């Protein structure tokens, strides 16, 4: 499946397809889900916007970096388009011989995704209004570069 996926991520199927290898004793995962509230307001869903080409390349680069740094297998996906409460928006899977590297790789991968991926959340509220979530400047941004 493409790393940037239209609609909710089929996270159960993706985890099954990432089936543990004989040499791996640990599989760590992180699944990001759409929650029903944000800063005190009731949220009914999120539309994810993306620069798809760059986002896919960033995910591939993060996968490679995590694999190299931690000596693990890593697979990453992010959803775009309209998601409802409870849908899976981002999935990190890391397989390793031992749990320490799996947990560390999983944590570093989701932090890199949140710092680097050109993706934007537009929340839909219960009253029908929408608003983009206040983001963070992309990591590595050179203001005068």
């Amino acid at each position, binding site marked *: 499946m493409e790393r940037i996926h239209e609609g909710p991520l089929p996270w159960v199927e993706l985890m099954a397809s990432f089936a543990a290898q004989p040499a791996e004793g640990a599989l760590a995962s992180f699944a*990001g889900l759409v929650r029903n509230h944000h800063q005190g307001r009731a949220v009914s869903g999120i539309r994810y*916007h*993306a*620069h798809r*080409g*760059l*986002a896919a390349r960033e995910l591939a680069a993060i996968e490679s970096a995590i694999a190299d740094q931690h000596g693990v297998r890593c697979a990453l996906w*992010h959803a775009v388009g309209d998601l409802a409460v409870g849908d899976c*928006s*981002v999935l990190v899977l890391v397989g390793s011989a031992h749990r320490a590297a799996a947990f560390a790789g999983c944590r570093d991968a*989701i932090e890199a*995704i*949140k710092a*680097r*991926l*050109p*993706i*934007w*959340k*537009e929340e839909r509220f219960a009253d029908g209004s929408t608003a*983009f*979530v*206040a*983001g*963070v*400047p*992309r990591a590595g*941004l*050179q*203001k*005068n*570069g």
Partner: protein
Amino acid sequence: MRITVHCLGPAQRWFGVDELPLELPDTATVQTAIEQLLTLSPAYAETEPMLAYALDEQWADRRTPLHEGAVLALIPPISAG
């Protein structure tokens, strides 16, 4: 030269469109485009120091030269996850 500005995420609201054509001098860089865009949207001007840019699917900096037909993507502060 004529380029296309791709307004992503909240940038769609700043300019009211997904894509915006710009007419620029032949020697234009990303910075030249930024200076023209600053005159079009106060919301963009307010947030601009926090933006990144991509030119034809590659990350670009402000000194990157533009070319006829280029696609310049505005990358506002991100909210992945």
